[in-house]
């Protein structure tokens, strides 16, 4: 008897967690795929099977194509800026002193406050009439911008907010990566009178590549899911210039009650996130020299 209990014990221990994951993560994904082949308005008791119609309709929808373009553009700009500037910043700020800790803390601070705070604050900073940013431009004699109110600058404005929020996090992850490089290697490079640029390219960058890679993927996935800043700052406007995938799904699901159609858009997001994740794990398993 006790031996059977012993054998069952590990299953009992992992069961609560697995029940939560199956119920709220795995099952919903299957349910969403199922719904994407149906038409349903949430109230009616019948879900009509429509095959691939939702997908066909979506791919023929100019708004959806614009949404995809916006998402891709927003993601590429955010990832390039947020990881591209974080690396030099990390090399610059990588010291263990009270002053450096203070600077690191300051640039990290937006990461721990609510996106609601950040969105409201930046809506006000970017106010076209009385905002501080236009005040700053005025100081340099530049004429005011309309920021979020202009379809030409709205998406870029949201990118600025995203970079402001994630720059500190990215920098500190890079710093953690830099600090995990064995100091003997750096000392050896210094003894060999390796030029700083050579040391960076031949030693630091390869050692840092898993970190870089992790950050790029995390930022890619995060940017594709952007919702809060859009819901609070622009509601997808002006004229859909900031409408992105998750906001689109949200609107179709909760405002227009086209559940099947919204699910199909969700499946597209699933494919994007899933592909990125697979690429990440594939490349990760190839890089064995790290740790």
């Amino acid at each position, binding site marked *: 008897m006790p031996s059977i209990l012993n054998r069952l014990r590990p299953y009992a221990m992992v069961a609560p967690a697995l029940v939560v994951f199956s119920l*709220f993560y795995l099952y919903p994904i299957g349910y969403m795929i199922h*719904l994407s082949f149906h038409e349903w308005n949430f109230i009616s008791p019948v879900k009509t099977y429509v095959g691939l119609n939702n997908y066909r309709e979506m791919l023929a929808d100019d708004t959806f194509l614009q949404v995809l373009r916006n998402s891709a553009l927003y993601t590429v700009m955010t990832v390039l800026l947020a990881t591209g500037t974080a690396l030099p910043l990390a090399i610059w700020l990588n010291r263990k*002193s009270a002053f450096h800790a203070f600077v690191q803390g300051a640039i990290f601070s937006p990461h*721990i406050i*609510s996106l*609601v705070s950040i969105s409201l604050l930046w809506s*006000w*900073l970017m106010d076209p009439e009385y905002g501080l940013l236009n005040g700053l431009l005025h100081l340099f004699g530049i004429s005011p911008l309309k920021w979020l109110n202009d379809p030409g600058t709205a998406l870029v404005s949201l990118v600025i907010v995203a970079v402001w929020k994630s720059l500190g996090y990215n920098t500190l992850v890079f710093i*953690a990566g830099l600090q995990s490089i064995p100091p003997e290697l750096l000392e050896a490079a210094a003894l060999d009178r390796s030029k700083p640029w050579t040391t960076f390219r031949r030693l630091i960058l390869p050692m840092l590549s898993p970190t870089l890679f992790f950050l790029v993927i995390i930022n890619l996935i995060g940017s594709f899911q952007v919702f809060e800043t859009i819901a609070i700052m622009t509601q997808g406007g002006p004229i859909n210039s900031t409408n992105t995938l998750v906001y689109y799904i949200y609107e179709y699901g909760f405002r227009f009650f086209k559940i099947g159609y919204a699910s199909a858009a969700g499946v597209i997001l699933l494919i994007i996130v899933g592909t990125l994740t697979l690429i990440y794990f594939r490349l990760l398993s190839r890089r064995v020299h790290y740790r």
Partner: protein
Amino acid sequence: MSMNDAGRRSAIGQAAGVRRPLAVRRIRAVLEAMLFAANRACMLLLVCAFALPFAWMLSTSLKTLPETMIFPPEWIPAEPVWSNYAVAWNSGPFLTYLLNSFIVSVGILILQMLTIIPAAYAFARFRFPGKGLLFGLVMATLMIPAQLIFLPVYLMLSDWKLLNTHLALILPFASSAFGIFLLRQSFMQTAEELIEAARLDNAPEWKIMLRIMAPLARPVLVTFALFSFITHWNDYFWPLVMTTNESARTLPLGIAKIRETEGTATWNVLMAANVMLAVPVLLAFFAAQRQIIRAFVYSGVK
């Protein structure tokens, strides 16, 4: 810092037998000092890019409405208007929001601790058929964001009549793949001898888990708790989707809603509300900066 560098470099120079004239060394020292000052100045400029928006939020929260409509903007209000805070607080059921935020964040944390500790322990310490598959399942959910599954989960919770309840905000996060991953690493590092000794003493398995392993993993548990609490305290997306009723809504939603009740352009009141939402978190951050940074950065290096 750079003084040390200078010292080391001149020491190397001396060891190599190169002794520079005094004047050259002096000029060098002055140059190094200037470089040092310039470096620090640039860092302070960087800090400004992050501190000024918060200072601006504080300044606006103490202005009269006409004072917010001055261009170019002015920093110091003539007379600080503290009543903006009262207006913001009274614009909605903020005590309810605050209480809901606490119930939800703490509720999630408690359930997570109950589910991740045994799961991480089992994955770290036992061999059992199907372990690899089950752990793969856990890791797969690590990559599934809430933004991907909110629609089907909403429909499920609606079927179960759970919308607009605390449970709708708590249950989906009752476990955490990230937590299991983090804690498993820590459990695997616990010395085998310690556990063997306890087993020889015939200590029951749950006692080993709670009395030996969990206390040893305390730093990791604290790290995870900080991460989890802050994440869910700040969350806007999930409560927005799962609740429509004020009685179940949380603080971030309440703050965002002030734009509807007080008007979109009442920036002084909005910023007062924003100070109430952001400043406690910022203060906590500066009190426990190292811990909190580790909590968030952990996910990046481990």
